[in-house]
């Protein structure tokens, strides 16, 4: 069976570094792993992702984006992913609730109160050829004004702990006309 995680990240030495990185951050425990899937797997999943049935979700004072069920991609329920995350996060991961999203021109999410007090976000970024000036960055912000910004980067996994932290997706502006920022966003509660 083909591995879905880049073997570079599953070597013992890498695992130790990742565990250290996860535990070592003063604010916002997070890890960003580029080229997370082997190229063949990434291309296959990207193709499947873009074929999903996306539905527009708009609530003007809160969000605007397109959303789809991601279960058919078999990423969030993948046992190898669960084992990988369990090792890095040093806790048993059995379930990840996740959906597929894309953000295109005029899409955004705003900060609003109904976000969990604690969660670990597991985000797979499938965004190709994106520029920061187009907007669409994912921002994590704490109540002291500190923040982390994740720009569009293809084949990337972001693992981030939310502890009294809120997140939003920056408005996607007219410079991104015709482009879509694809994301798989899952969470561990």
């Amino acid at each position, binding site marked *: 069976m083909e591995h879905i995680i880049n073997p570079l990240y599953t070597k013992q030495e890498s695992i130790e570094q990742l565990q250290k990185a996860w535990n070592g951050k003063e604010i916002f425990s997070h890890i960003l792993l580029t080229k997370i899937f082997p190229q063949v797997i990434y291309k296959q999943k990207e193709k499947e992702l873009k074929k999903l049935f996306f539905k527009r979700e708009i609530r003007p004072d809160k969000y605007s984006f397109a959303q789809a069920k991601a279960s058919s991609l078999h990423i969030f329920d993948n046992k190898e992913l669960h084992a990988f995350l369990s090792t890095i996060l040093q806790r048993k991961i059995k379930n990840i609730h996740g959906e597929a999203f894309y953000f295109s021109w005029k899409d955004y999410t705003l900060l609003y109160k109904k976000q969990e007090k604690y969660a670990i976000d597991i985000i797979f970024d499938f965004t190709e050829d994106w520029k920061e000036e187009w907007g669409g960055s994912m921002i994590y912000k704490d109540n002291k004004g500190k923040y982390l910004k994740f720009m569009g980067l293809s084949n990337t996994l972001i693992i981030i702990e939310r502890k009294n932290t809120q997140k939003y997706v920056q*408005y996607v502006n*007219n410079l991104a006309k015709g482009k879509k920022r694809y994301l798989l966003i899952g969470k561990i509660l």
Partner: protein
Amino acid sequence: MNIEQAISDKTLQDWIKPGYRTRNKIQELKRLFQNNAPFPHLELQNFFDEEKLAKVVHSLAKEVFLEKESDLFKFMQTHDFATSSTEELIELRKLLSSKPFLVYMEEITGIKLKEKSIDISASLYQNTDYLLPHDDQLEGRKIAFIIYLSNFEARDGGKLILYKTKGTIPREEEKTIIPQFNSFVFFKATDKSFHEVEEIMVNKQRITIGGWLHGAYHKSTLHKAREY
């Protein structure tokens, strides 16, 4: 002070065009304000004396515009004119918070306002800048106002969009206002007054002066704490 005394005031006469200062016009504006949908508002074109407003525009060049960015907006803004040392801006602030002007606004809107209680600053929106839907409600804010200092076309973006609400949830765009130099727009700030500034889509500058007129402090309005 009554409305007759207010419209006879020398400063008001210097700043506001005669057509907007007659008893009949004020009665007409009062009806329009209450009946305009999706929430009480007015757009008054060619409202101020052009010469005075041109001096205000000129004086803005001396002001520092600071970048403002959050989940809700991206644009540039000056400090409140209360801290400005520019004569024209101080004069405009003084007019908009003066007793005669507040009596004039109270007559049109039916909203009781507090003298010398105003927030006022200038904003500059450029290509890709925006202000997403929000309701403007914050303690004491009664009337939100905007003085447009640029001319835009519909395709340029930068329109003020007013939302229709179901309860207090914004549902769909109901009215759009295209920026035109010397238009004075104001609306009642409530938990239903959802509006946005559409993203600018061209290389033009959208310059406005805006802010809020305040009313008496009420505990019941103290449920939001977001400022922009």
